[in-house]
């Protein structure tokens, strides 16, 4: 079936009175009604690793994440559940979504969940799951013929713009960009020199970390992941805010980073968090029918 692409944005009377204030980015201009866009043999693949765990908002989070990913060409979603078995909820959701996916699971042992750090918010989460995702990648592809592609760690409650994926697609080693709503700021971003090299970090929380960047703020090329099979997120002795460093220090140095998003001046990803829903009326034994999936 040939690709029929219509540029409909400008043909509706809706925004007549608004003049276009900036040139529209090319990635959003056209409708591509096949969901997802057909796989291309020439475009680098984006492997998105998402750790997830069971809680009331899980299905909602994964649904809206899938709705975003359905726009992105050549995206392969690696969903890793923190559970002893793959749940039906996630399996069905992935089947129905229509995306290319891999469904894995690994349970975080209770001892780890309770706290590597005495500050609960600093306990690294999703570590085992992300490592399993990396492990799957290394098993699926060989270093001698690495595919063109990039790995991105996407938590299920963040918000991603479509532009972000096109920025990261052509990463040669490790690329970085600003992330909104982390570190108690509107956004944290790498400090970029006029020559286009990363020279530091614009953060308030511990800017002297080797990589003062959030999980959502970088992507790594597959080639590099396969070249360095020992690189993974560390569990032991990782202070709060250092999880990203524990992986990146084995892969790249600061001057090897590629700044994206217009030299790190645009925010294309937001570290949103979803409120825990108040389920007070469920009572101790649960009121609603547990067979109705939410």
């Amino acid at each position: 079936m040939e690709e029929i692409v219509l540029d409909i944005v400008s043909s509706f009377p809706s925004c007549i009175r608004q003049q276009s204030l900036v040139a529209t980015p090319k990635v959003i201009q056209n409708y591509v009604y096949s969901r997802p866009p057909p796989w291309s043999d020439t475009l680098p693949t984006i492997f998105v690793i998402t750790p997830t765990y069971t809680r009331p908002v899980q299905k909602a989070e994964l649904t809206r994440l899938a709705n975003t990913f359905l726009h992105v060409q050549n995206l392969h979603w690696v969903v890793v559940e923190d559970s002893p078995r793959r749940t039906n909820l996630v399996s069905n959701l992935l089947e129905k979504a229509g995306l290319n996916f891999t469904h894995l699971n690994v349970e975080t042992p209770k001892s780890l969940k309770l706290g590597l750090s005495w500050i609960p918010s600093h306990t690294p989460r999703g570590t085992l799951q992300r490592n399993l995702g990396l492990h799957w990648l290394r098993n699926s592809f060989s270093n001698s013929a690495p595919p063109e592609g990039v790995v991105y760690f996407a938590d299920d409650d963040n918000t991603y713009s479509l532009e972000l994926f096109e920025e990261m697609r052509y990463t040669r080693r490790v690329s970085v960009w600003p992330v909104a709503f982390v570190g108690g700021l509107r956004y944290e971003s790498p400090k970029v020199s006029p020559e286009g090299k990363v020279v530091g970090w614009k953060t308030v929380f511990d800017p002297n970390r080797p990589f003062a960047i959030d999980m959502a703020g970088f992507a790594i090329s597959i080639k590099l992941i396969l070249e360095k099979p020992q690189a993974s997120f560390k569990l032991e002795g990782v202070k709060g805010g250092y999880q990203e460093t524990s992986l990146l220090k084995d892969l790249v140095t600061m001057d090897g980073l590629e700044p994206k998003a217009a030299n790190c001046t645009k925010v294309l990803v937001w570290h949103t968090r979803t409120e825990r829903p108040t389920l007070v009326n469920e009572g101790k034994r649960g009121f609603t029918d547990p067979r109705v999936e939410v």
Partner: protein
Amino acid sequence: MAFRVYLVCLKHVRQELYESSAVLVQKNINTSHSETSQRSERQNMVGRLQSQDQLEKFLILRNRGENQKLLPTIYAITPTYSRPVQKAELTRLANTLRQVARLHWILVEDAAARSELVSRFVAAAGLPCTHLHVPTPRRYKRPGLPRATEQRNAGLAWLRQRHQHLPPPQPGVLFFADDDNTYSLELFHEMRSTRKVSVWPVGLVGGRRYERPLVENGKVVGWYTGWRADRPFAVDMAGFAVSLQVILAHPKAVFKRRGSQPGMQESDFLKQITTVEELEPKANNCTKVLVWHTRTEKVNLANEPKYHVDTVNIEV
């Protein structure tokens, strides 16, 4: 007929949507308030099609459009207001809405003037969108009072005004999409066939995993909810859709301020336009949750300096 085509051709989504969008273009050309700028833009669009035979197909379909029944347009009214997560919320909502065929997004800002952020967002949104604004009077901004009333009413007023010159019947379905909820794509399939007013379950609301209408023999007979089940319509804003015909047939039906309590907004509105007997249950007789009343946490900006100190001004 087009509706049946839509159901049958789910596999050939591209072709069907191509047809319906071509038909919509035809409709736009014929509406009474088209301006010259629109027409030249349409010609630009024709010029931008990628190949000769696509252009041919487009022209054939456009001429056929006159006789084809239109797929009902879904109108989504979204009130929005300025806060740090606004752009993020609108972005991910747009990522969902963009995948729905024949959806027209009506975005209403709670503001005295159109903000730059939303204007820029709308220009690049990639789906048919109308950008309105109306400020909420300060005295209504107290906690405990119903919210977004003026904005939803502005959306209704725009719809009514737009359709008053057109002969009935207008196929269309209207629903209220708050910018922090989560919508599955299946929901839009379900609501498109609304004849008068349809209802379905909503997840994570009313202090429970879900709230839903109780259905017997295809009719709504009661409400399954954790909060005030005595409401005449115990549904959340995200739990119902109204056909355009009903909205146009009841020109005075609006969300009320005077004498309304929070949590009763939906009831007070639906009372004016329908009865419980008329409600159409969707989502498999109201047993599937296709929309979730998610809420986003307030962001921690504790480390922001009091005054702007950065060398650049970045929109977030």
